[in-house]
């Protein structure tokens, strides 16, 4: 007799654990995907903040360089989580320096 919760069965009272949305990957709904050009990106993070799915993130392992106020700055690249990105295009719409393109998702 156990009160452990299982993903395959209902539970007493139909209680559920958090994190269920991590299992249901909505990336398959996507028909457009973002391309981060890293040409003008100044690391403002608007894309991260505006993404309704929270799947734009900083990828500090890869960097690009821009010129700002006569100085060179190293900016961490952006990337997106393909498991959950639904291709809504809000990151591209909000990027103040037009560094993101939305392209058709072609497999």
């Amino acid at each position, binding site marked *: 007799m156990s009160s452990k919760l299982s993903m395959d069965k209902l539970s007493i009272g139909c209680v559920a654990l958090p994190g269920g949305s991590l299992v249901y990957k*909505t990336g*398959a*709904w*996507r*028909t457009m995907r973002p391309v981060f050009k890293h040409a003008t990106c100044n690391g403002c993070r608007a894309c991260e903040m505006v993404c309704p799915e929270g799947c734009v993130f900083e990828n500090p392992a890869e960097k690009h360089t821009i010129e700002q106020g006569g100085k060179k700055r190293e900016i961490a690249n952006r990337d997106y989580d393909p498991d959950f990105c*639904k*291709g*809504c295009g809000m990151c591209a719409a909000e990027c103040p320096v037009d560094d993101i393109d939305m392209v058709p*998702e072609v*497999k």
Partner: protein
Amino acid sequence: MFKEIRIHGRGGQGSVTAAEVLAKAAFKDGLTSQAFPAFGSERMGAPVRAFCRVSDKPIRTRSEIHAPDYCIVQDPTLLETVNVFEGLKAGGVVILNSEKPEEVKVPAGAVLKAVPGNRIAQEVIGRPIPNMVMVGAFAGTTGLVSLASLKAAVKERFGGKVGDLNAEAAEKAYNAMKEAK
């Protein structure tokens, strides 16, 4: 005569409207019809199904359509995650919005007809919204509803210039499918 049509689309693509327009067109042709969505939480982009029944006798059942005579697939990317052929009757016809139908694995017994729905929609309506194009393609392929009734139903549903353009797009797809036969 009793025909069941299942429409596959994504939330926001107008699959329910497609079913509604088909039902209205059939009704104008003097048949009885019924249209409804697979009910549930509706989100933009999520796979959705809509259903349409057409008959010359009263339609009494309201269960979902499990053995369709026809399927309309509005979005080819659905093929990756949804089995649009499920339950299709032997010899059933799938009308697919696609420019590359040769890439689709069609199960034995099913007939696939492709139409470049997004392209026709973009050309005629100016936006890649192909739901009325697909309904036109369906009518041209199957003859289940007449072009005249379909155009009238489209115009009634949308009204104004939008209605006219969608009806024109539906007619273009209708003719394309008729010629292809």
